[in-house]
């Protein structure tokens, strides 16, 4: 008889230390609160995995497990394909301090052949894994979060100063569907700040120019062009079905339409606005589950009349400013999609570039607001006069 190999000796050691259980028992333990960890590789998991299993991967197991299973006293059941890799993984978990770690004898193959429930989780393709690798490394995003981004539908109102950086970064982040509303064409004077457009696309519709840039950055996303001027007759049908609306418009008439439709459809309205050296960012989302914030009308019930708004001749803007403000909007959008952090609901960030000052201001919901108060009957859309927009002599 030949000597057992080093591998076999090691496996025998592990079997002596790690309790092995049958798949059916593992399923029962999971139902009564145990954590089931599937340590197989992504391509194996793509063929199926026990429902509710934590798919942490063998390579990153030790780095990710404490986030997924913070309680060291919780029973942990580990599985792989055949019940060998799971022994190594289980020993490693025991050495991290998990007190009750078991391994499934025969692994997922035995689980599946025994007719136990499986699910085929949606996973990222190899190309997506490569593209979004820096997202996948962060537990706050991870594969689950990246799939949320890929499934998200975000509508950008305006493909101009604010819309440009928002569109580019959301496309890069893998937001799966990006809608763009703009009826304008690219003008050379836009290029001082509207970085989604290019000199050779002067004269082409902004939505087409932006689509080209976004698909050049990330060909896998879908860009939906709405080459229309938003008004009371089309706002609701365009907005319906989007998960987040990002307001980068340039006139009050559009901003009130955006607000009113978002309130009615319960869509978060990520707001950014700019003037010269100054910008405002907030998230108007009365339907936010964790905190009751205001809508735009709670804060500014009515737009200013043209004679009290800054004149068109004054409405210049530092070219970099929409980059700063737009990217704060993009960050808020990604947070809302992922459900992480604390969104700017009920808060307004005010950025003044000259003194380099960011102030946080508290915004309260108006309990009497005609649009968003509890039980309000929707009062209807209002077509305010458009003044100082890009249709005329505006910014």
């Amino acid at each position: 008889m030949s000597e057992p190999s080093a591998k076999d000796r090691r496996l025998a050691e592990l079997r002596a230390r790690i309790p092995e259980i049958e798949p059916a028992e593992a399923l029962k333990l999971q139902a009564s609160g145990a954590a089931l960890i599937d340590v197989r590789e992504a391509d194996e998991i793509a063929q199926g995995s026990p429902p509710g299993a934590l798919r942490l991967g063998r390579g990153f197991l030790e780095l990710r497990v404490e986030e997924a299973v913070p309680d060291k006293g919780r029973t942990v059941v580990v599985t792989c394909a055949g019940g060998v890799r799971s022994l190594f993984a289980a020993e490693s978990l025991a050495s991290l301090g998990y007190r009750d770690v078991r391994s499934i004898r025969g692994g997922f193959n035995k689980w599946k052949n025994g007719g136990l429930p499986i699910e085929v989780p949606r996973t990222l393709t190899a190309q997506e894994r490569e593209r979004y690798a820096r997202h996948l490394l962060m537990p706050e995003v991870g594969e689950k979060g990246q799939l949320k981004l890929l499934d998200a539908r975000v509508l950008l109102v305006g493909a101009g100063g604010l819309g440009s950086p928002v569109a580019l970064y959301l496309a890069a982040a893998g937001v799966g569907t990006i809608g763009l509303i703009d009826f304008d064409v690219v003008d050379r004077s836009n290029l001082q700040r509207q970085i989604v457009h290019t000199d050779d696309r002067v004269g082409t519709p902004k939505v087409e120019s932006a689509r080209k840039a976004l698909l050049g950055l990330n060909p896998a996303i879908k860009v939906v062009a709405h080459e229309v001027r938003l008004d009371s007759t089309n706002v609701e049908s365009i907005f319906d079905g989007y998960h987040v609306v990002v307001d980068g418009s340039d006139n009050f008439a559009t901003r009130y339409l955006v607000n009113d439709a978002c309130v009615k459809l319960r869509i978060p309205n990520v707001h950014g606005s700019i003037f010269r050296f100054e910008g405002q960012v907030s998230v108007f989302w009365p339907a936010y589950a964790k905190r009751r914030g205001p809508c735009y009308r709670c804060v500014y019930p009515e737009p200013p009349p043209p004679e009290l708004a800054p004149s068109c001749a004054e409405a210049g803007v530092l070219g970099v400013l929409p980059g700063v403000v737009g990217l704060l909007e993009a960050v808020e959008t990604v947070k809302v999609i992922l459900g992480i952090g604390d969104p700017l609901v009920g808060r307004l960030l005010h950025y003044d570039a000259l003194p380099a000052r960011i102030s946080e201001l508290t915004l309260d919901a108006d309990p009497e607001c005609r649009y968003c108060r509890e039980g309000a009957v929707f009062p209807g859309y209002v077509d305010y006069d458009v003044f100082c927009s890009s249709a005329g002599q505006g910014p």
Partner: protein
Amino acid sequence: MSKVTVRIPTALRSFVGGADEVGLEAETVGRVISVLADRHRGLIERICDAEGRIRPFVNLFVDGKNIKTSGGLDTPLADGAVVSIVPAVAGGR
């Protein structure tokens, strides 16, 4: 009297000689309004209507808190308070 700082929005800086902040002494927000009205011709008309009410497209904040929920024009000011005037801004392109 409390020494306070009033932050002037970009759109109204032409009324205060281009300054982004104005220092003055006042015990309430209402007093800030009347001091600004005395000193800077044309400014207050942009913030308040003819009856002296804050216009619906302007908000005033004391140390980041909207005066709508903290006592309106009677909101008291401590020494060192920062009063921010924040009008609605439409620009985005």
